[in-house]
């Protein structure tokens, strides 16, 4: 069992290395991607910065606390796209029948899909997100204990899993839509925008959507609420790892169910 997972991890690393080698052929493009995606995400920062020039807090959340929520979105998105950008390839893989290649190899197709691309634009997100996170944490007076640090790590990993699972699950819709221009995964992705700010500012409909339907709130808001001991939401933060497991199992189930419908079109 363990040997199997180690083998998968090693293979994953090899696939990613292959992607990197391929990518190095387009070095300028790579730099532009990293720079531009970092730049576009700085805009949100400007928004928050301008607002907090005028008001001390929003719904009881100070600037640095909101920045943690914001940075969580970017760090997790960055890591998730750096490592698992391949989900976005599913549309092409399925509609052009390229998934065939993955299915005739003795390796999990999910592993092969996830590692079919490397999201260099994630590097920009990771760098900026981490910088904000470090700044924010140093500005917030918090009592860090070892259990809390461990929990913070668990929350971060869970958040990455949740995000990546949503990506895999929403992209699996391609098995049903039979439509090369399907925009469903992008729609789901853009809902993540709500998770950049404290979810407590929204009405119940939006809160329900980002908590239950597409649990983006567990990527940023609930973990932050837990760490900062905010209102009732801190208890929700404890659920994050459970939600992560639920999402991962859900995504794999949806994928496998969809795979049975795969028609290997596009000859």
């Amino acid at each position, binding site marked *: 069992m363990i040997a199997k997972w180690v083998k998968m991890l090693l293979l994953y690393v090899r696939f990613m290395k292959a992607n990197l080698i391929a990518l190095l052929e*387009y070095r*300028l*493009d790579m730099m*532009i*991607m990293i*720079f*531009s*995606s970092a*730049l*576009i995400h*700085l*805009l949100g920062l*400007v*928004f928050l910065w*301008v*607002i907090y*020039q*005028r*008001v001390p807090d*929003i*719904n009881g959340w100070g600037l640095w606390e909101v920045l943690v929520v914001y940075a969580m979105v970017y760090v997790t998105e960055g890591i998730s796209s750096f490592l698992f950008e391949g989900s976005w390839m599913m549309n092409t893989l399925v509609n052009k029948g390229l998934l065939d290649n993955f299915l005739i190899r003795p390796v999990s197709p999910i592993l092969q899909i996830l590692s079919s691309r490397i999201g260099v634009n994630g590097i920009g997100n990771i760098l900026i997100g981490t910088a904000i996170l470090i700044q924010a944490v140093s500005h917030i007076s918090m009592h860090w204990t070892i259990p809390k640090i461990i929990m913070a790590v668990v929350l971060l990993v869970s958040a990455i899993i949740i995000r990546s699972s949503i990506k895999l699950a929403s992209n699996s819709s391609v098995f049903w839509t039979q*439509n090369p*221009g*399907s*925009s469903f995964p*992008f*729609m789901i992705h*853009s*809902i993540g*925008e*709500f998770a*950049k*700010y404290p979810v407590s*500012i*929204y*009405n119940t409909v*939006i809160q329900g959507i980002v908590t239950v339907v597409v649990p983006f709130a567990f990527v940023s808001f609930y973990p932050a609420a837990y760490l900062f001991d905010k209102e009732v939401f801190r208890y929700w933060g404890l659920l994050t790892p459970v939600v992560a497991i639920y999402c991962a199992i859900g995504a794999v189930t949806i994928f496998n169910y969809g795979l049975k419908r795969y028609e290997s079109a596009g000859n």
Partner: protein
Amino acid sequence: MNAFRKYIVLGKVSLQNAMAYRSTFLISLLAGFVLVMSQFYIWKAIYSKHNEIGGYSWDEMKAYLLIMFITNSLLSWYSEMAISQKILDGSVAMDLLKPLDFQKARLAETMGASIFESILGAALASIIIIIFEGIASPPDLLTWLLFLVSLLASALIKFGIIYIAGLFCFWTSNPYGVAWVRAAITNLLSGAIVPLTLFPRWLESVTAYLPFRGVVFVPASIFLNRINGQAAVQEIAIQLLWALFLWLAGRMIWSRAVRQITIYGG
């Protein structure tokens, strides 16, 4: 007149294309919708404790958000990618063989597609108006008229910016990177994040010397009657001058870029 007609045809074809790819439009509009909704709620939380922020009442801020959404919906991602794609897939070489002006042809296509965008955008805008419950609106017909002219000028400026950004694909093969940088700069300096008057004084005065404020801030300010009468006419004139300037700059860059084609070999 005949010379003009072929561009009308191009615009028509582009409109039909846009309708065929309606789902692509819907996503980029929905992404804008989610963005405006999240900003709406964050402002709502702020205004629950403040009567005005930087001179904007809550109703005015809602109106500003609406105009922001509308100007962002026009000339969306699709038009931007269409220009880059023309260059990247080499069909620009085919275009050079035709008796068409590249820039005018792209303008015709962009405007054609934006008719469809306006319809979709208007539908979403009305949903926004319902959700927002009460927004400030222009006091009289003249203001409405000035606003619409300003909105048209905004589209022309945006075309100028998109076109020039698209031409950069002659030098790089990464349309997304170019589009992202373009979007980041435009959004920051046009007032698409917050009204420019909320910026620190130095940043606000920088934007006064750039074309970007004509994209969002000027039409929104006219809509809110914050710029009116002669000042509004003056601002619109400046918008049009910028549009003209960007058009000419686009021509200049194009003639440089065409030399690039011979290097690429089409």
